[in-house]
């Protein structure tokens, strides 16, 4: 045995190196869920390729009793299941850590490291002896390594077996195979290694009411609870699972039990131009409608986002951001659509944006997106990202208030129209500068022609400068008014803070952990997470409270910083950047290093 790590309970990270398409996701998800059920704070990050089968894929699990679940960069244990990436994977294990590998074939001597412990398990050999079907042999290797991890990390074995029973309820053969494979790996590890390892798990009670859910599922659920009935989309990674989940929920909740009729329509569009067009058409006609997409889709939607903005039609867009520009890296995460979304389309346009940080906020903000879109009669874009959308997060259980009713905004029906001498589409603004709309098919007195061409406050075509400007100026005031309705920033002040750290979306866990680490070094800092655009006045106030602030975000061009500079009066030199944009989820070390580097200058 080599240098031992200090014994650690519920505080370590493991990485599983697999081959894409071999069924490893199931085993990795099983481990995650088991740890979650043991009541321990945990996170799982799937680092996968844009590929169906054959390329390397990784899964990282971090457990942390203090609840820090951002991506860790040091791995205590590597499960090396992909011979192609052995060198890189073994190289990533921290000194004194472990490598569990398939010893059915000998490991190249050159790959050995003196400072690392190797845990050879003959996974393929065992599975070949116990299973006949070639596909089953491949799949069961994964469950077998999960079994070895159950033994070495002291995961609750009866609990894992129970999970298998739940998963394969009604599929007896599958359940038996899985149980057998799990036991093979478990027994082997128990016999051959000193179990548990010096870092391992112990039951906690940190997950009380919490759930394990990915952001895309939570987003889809939000759309269901918001009452969305029309969804249009074009398949795109990493947003596809939003619509997959929406469809599943619709089949469960939106099919009339008596008539078997569907209270929803899902339209798989020919492209994103069409997807947003369908959303606009449905919203114009009074339905709650949305589309889910990623950056390339937003690029195509730019044209019609301007149409919806100018004709004042609600539209909800879910942007699950991925790495750009162009095709970029479709299976990697980034926050690089901020500016594109804020000002999407030609001409003077500005949109309402919401920035959830985790699946719980995806659920909540999806619902708020519809309320805001209808109240302000304009597009609302919710910017999630691949890390939030496709990874499982431990979040507080979702709550629902049955007294909630959608905010449909100002819509005139026959009774209201009766009282008007004449209805003019863009007149009669309220204190938020919103003019009432009418819906087709309700009353001929509410009829008007919505047009993307120049129009005056009566809704008529115009090319007269003053008439055109009158409408555009109201739109600007309306947009400004929305700042009081978007989610407020989350602010956490610490005593004697020297500066502020501002961040957005899924950076939250890494930044909060980094702030704790900085505080340990006697560098306290205040925290603000921006959650909506246009910015609430408290965002500007926070900027002015501090001599300087760091803005931590996942894009190259400091897009959040740019928006803060453009939309507030804060001087440029008071806002600094920490940028991490390689495509993997942020970790606290990136933030600490980025800040320290600049402080030490």
């Amino acid at each position, binding site marked *: 045995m080599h240098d031992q790590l200090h014994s650690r309970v519920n505080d370590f990270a493991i990485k599983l190196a697999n081959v894409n398409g071999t069924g490893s996701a199931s085993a990795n998800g099983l481990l995650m869920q088991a740890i*979650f*059920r043991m009541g321990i704070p945990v996170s799982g990050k799937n680092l996968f390729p844009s590929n169906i089968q054959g390329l390397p894929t990784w899964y990282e699990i971090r457990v942390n009793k203090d609840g820090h679940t951002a991506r860790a960069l040091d791995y205590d244990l590597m499960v090396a299941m992909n011979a192609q990436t052995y060198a890189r994977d073994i190289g990533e294990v921290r000194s004194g850590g472990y490598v569990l590998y398939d010893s059915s074939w000998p490991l190249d001597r050159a790959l050995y490291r003196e400072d690392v412990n190797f845990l050879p398990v003959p996974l393929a050999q065992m599975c070949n002896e116990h299973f006949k079907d070639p596909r089953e042999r491949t799949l069961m290797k994964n469950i077998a390594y999960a079994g070895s991890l159950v033994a070495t990390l002291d995961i609750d074995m009866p609990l894992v077996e129970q999970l298998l029973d739940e998963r394969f309820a009604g599929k007896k053969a599958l359940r038996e195979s899985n149980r057998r494979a799990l036991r093979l790996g478990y027994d082997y590890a128990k016999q051959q290694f000193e179990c548990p390892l010096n870092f391992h798990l112990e039951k906690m009670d940190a997950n009380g009411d*919490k*759930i*394990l*859910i990915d952001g895309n599922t939570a987003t889809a*659920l939000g759309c*269901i*609870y918001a009452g969305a*009935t*029309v969804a*249009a989309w074009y398949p795109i990674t990493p947003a596809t699972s939003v619509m997959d989940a929406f469809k599943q929920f619709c089949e469960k*909740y939106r099919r009339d039990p008596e*008539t*078997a*009729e*569907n*209270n*929803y*329509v899902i*339209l798989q*569009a*020919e*492209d994103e*131009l*069409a*997807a947003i*067009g*369908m*959303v*606009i*058409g*449905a*919203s*114009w*006609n*009074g*339905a709650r*409608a949305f589309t889910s997409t990623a950056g390339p889709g937003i690029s195509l939607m730019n*044209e*019609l986002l301007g*149409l919806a903005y100018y004709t004042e039609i609600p539209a909800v867009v879910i942007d699950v951001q991925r790495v750009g520009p162009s095709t970029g890296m479709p299976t990697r995460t980034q926050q690089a659509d901020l500016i594109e979304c804020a000002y999407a389309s030609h001409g003077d346009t500005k949109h309402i944006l919401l920035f959830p940080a985790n699946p719980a906020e995806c659920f909540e903000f999806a619902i708020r997106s519809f309320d805001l879109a209808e109240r302000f009669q304009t597009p609302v874009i919710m910017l999630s990202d691949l890390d939030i959308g496709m990874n499982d997060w431990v979040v507080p259980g*979702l709550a*629902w*208030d*049955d007294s909630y*009713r959608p905010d449909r905004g100002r819509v005139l029906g026959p009774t209201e129209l009766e009282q008007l001498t004449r209805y003019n589409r863009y007149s009669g603004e309220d204190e938020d500068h919103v003019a009432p709309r009418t*819906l*087709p*098919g*309700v*009353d*001929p007195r*509410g*009829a008007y*022609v*919505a*047009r*993307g*061409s120049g129009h005056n406050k009566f809704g008529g075509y115009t090319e007269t400068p003053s008439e055109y400007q009158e409408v555009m100026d109201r739109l600007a005031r309306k947009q400004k008014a929305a700042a009081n309705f978007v989610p407020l920033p989350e602010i956490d002040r610490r005593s004697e803070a020297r500066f502020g750290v501002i961040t957005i979306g899924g950076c939250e866990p890494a930044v909060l952990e980094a702030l704790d680490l900085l505080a340990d070094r006697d560098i306290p800092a205040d925290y603000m997470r921006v959650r909506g655009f246009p910015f609430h006045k408290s965002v500007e106030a926070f900027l002015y409270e501090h001599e300087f602030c760091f803005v931590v975000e996942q894009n190259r061009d400091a897009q959040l910083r740019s928006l803060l500079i453009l939309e507030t009066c804060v001087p440029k030199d008071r806002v600094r950047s920490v940028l991490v944009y390689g495509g993997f989820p942020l970790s606290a070390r990136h933030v600490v290093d980025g800040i320290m580097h600049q402080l030490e200058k």
Partner: protein
Amino acid sequence: MPSIVKPVVTHPSLQRNQLGLTLRDYEGSMSTLCAGCGHDSITAAIVRALWEVSIEPHMLAKMSGIGCSSKTPAYFAHGAHGFNSAHGRMPPIATGANAANRELTYIGVSGDGDSLSIGLGHLCHAIRRNVKMVYIIENNGVYGLTKGQFSASADTGSKSKRGEANEMSPIDPVMLALSIGATFVARSFSGDKDQLVPILRAALAHRGFALIDVISPCVTFNDHTGSTKSYLYTRQHELKATEVDFVPPEKEILATIAQNGITSVTMHDGSVVQFKSVPADYDPADRQKATAYLMAQQSKGVIVTGLLFVDESVSDLHEMNRTSHVPLSRIPYENLCPGSAALQELQEDFR
């Protein structure tokens, strides 16, 4: 609709339809198109057809994209909501609108630039979805608002006003629609209201997507010698393959149709389209035969008009989707939200 401002008062002798409305109730604001534009004649035919079928104006939704043609929804049915959207994007917007409220009647007015170039993909997919709507292509072979460029429907050899010949092959919306499963395909000529009005009435009764390609000469940029979309050329080369009569859904009339050897098609709403003077080798219910006939005539330079193909057996978007008969936009929120108890139960799956 008209190019001159008419007084608002209506003459008591004006005929009234079943709803007690006159033609004037189906008109819109004054046209801003060039005097003599074919599009204005089509607008007049639309007004006529809507009046004849006695549709409540506010139960109509007028959809368009961008171009001369797309301006025209403002010129008819002032009591209906309209959406003059973006270039080429009317089909998806109409699809979304239709998804939200299946009770309205949708009329889309587009042009050859809007539908056959920038929005070609959208048109094809609206056809595939069989969105229940009337879709009119006001086809003049030319871009009017940008002053006379060839469009995708310009025939090979057709000459521009400046004398340049188009060398590329045209996209024929009728042949295209037939090839991708369109369920209602017609072609007409803006100068022939007698033919166009019954076609429009049949289209309004169709179960799904009804495409009407209307040759509509552009008097300013494409009505010269050498153009194949001029009034003169169209009149000289038109062949009316079918003449149709539209019979509303009334049982007494239904009983009399089969008698005179007339081909007839019963529409989804029970109305009947009667085909008269159909050529011997033509069957408007047989996609293959219709296509072969049209190709043969096309190779001779003949512009075949009439209601060319109908299939009432194909489900529309909502039938395929098994959507609620109550329009989605009117379903009460209480019926859409699963509520807190369901949310608690569901979350057991996430633990």
